[in-house]
Every structure is written in structure tokens, then in C-alpha cells.
């Protein structure tokens, strides 16, 4: 089967990559995409935790290497 025939299905199955005028819609601010919001806040919290952990590791390394503690 030619590849074009296989790709015809994508517009119904994969709405994120292929937006044509039959399935596209204006982004609606009253209905937030909670998955994306959750991911954004989750990665924010993750990055802050990573930063604080890296900082405390650095402080500990500095103290041990200079014999302060």
C-alpha cells in the first residue's frame, strides 16, 4: 500500500501534529489543558528541587575539600 494511503488516517488519529481546517479549533482560555498546566508546574517544582539539591551538594563539597567541616 503506498505511504500516502497510510498517512490519510493521521488527521483523525493524531490531532496535535496535523491541524487542518476540519479539526482545528481556536485555543479556549476558559478550558485550560490541565495536563499541560500540571506538567508545567510539575517541572517547575522538579527544577527548584534539583537546584536546591545541587546547591547543598556544592556547599558540602566545598566544606569537605577546604577542611572546614
Amino acid at each position: 500500500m503506498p505511504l500516502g494511503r497510510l498517512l490519510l488516517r493521521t488527521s483523525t488519529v493524531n490531532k496535535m501534529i496535523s491541524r487542518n481546517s476540519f479539526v482545528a479549533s481556536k485555543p479556549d482560555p476558559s478550558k485550560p489543558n490541565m495536563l499541560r498546566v500540571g506538567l508545567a508546574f510539575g517541572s517547575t517544582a522538579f527544577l527548584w528541587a534539583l537546584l536546591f539539591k545541587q546547591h547543598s551538594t556544592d556547599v558540602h563539597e566545598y566544606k569537605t575539600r577546604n577542611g572546614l567541616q
Partner: protein
Amino acid sequence: MGLLPDEAKVLPPPGIVNRNSVWFGLCGWATAMLHNSLNRRPALKAGVHRQALFITVGWFIGYHLTKYENYKYATLDRDMNEYIRLHPNEFPEKERKTFAEIVEPFHPIR
């Protein structure tokens, strides 16, 4: 540390709040607000998750950039001091004069 060698751990780490972090965080916030205004949304009240994420990414990059900057300056200082130590004839001690020796005597005319 990805880009920093092991010897960089001898240096004191920058604080969580440091110049580069604050600047990059503010730049991230400005980017998020610009994104809001270009999509005709209220600049401050819309997309708070996006603003938080951009500020955090900026802050994170700023912290690591400060660490890298500290290391680079420390290596430059070390090389400079090592050069000064190895070439003492190029850095003679300059004779210092006090102001009393340079300034002319003061005769008040009142």
C-alpha cells in the same frame, strides 16, 4: 557539574539568589509576558504556569552560569598570580610617598 572539571569544586558555590539567576529569571518572566501579549491575553494574569516555568528555567541556567563564571575568573586569577610569582623582576616594588612629602607646605593668609 557537566562542563566544569573536578577542581572547580574547591571554589565556594554561589548563593541561590545571585546576579545571573535574577537576571535570567526576569528575562524568562519577560518572555512569558511577551508571549501572553502577542497572543492577546492579559500579560500578568494569564498563563501563570508558563511564567513560573520560564522564571525557573532562567533561574536554573543563571545559577550554573554563575558557577562557570566563578571558575573561569578563578583560573585567570591563578594563572596571573603564578606568572607574577615566576617573573618577579617584571613587578618591582614601587617606592611609596606619603602626601606629606608630595604636597607643598601650607601658609595660611587670613
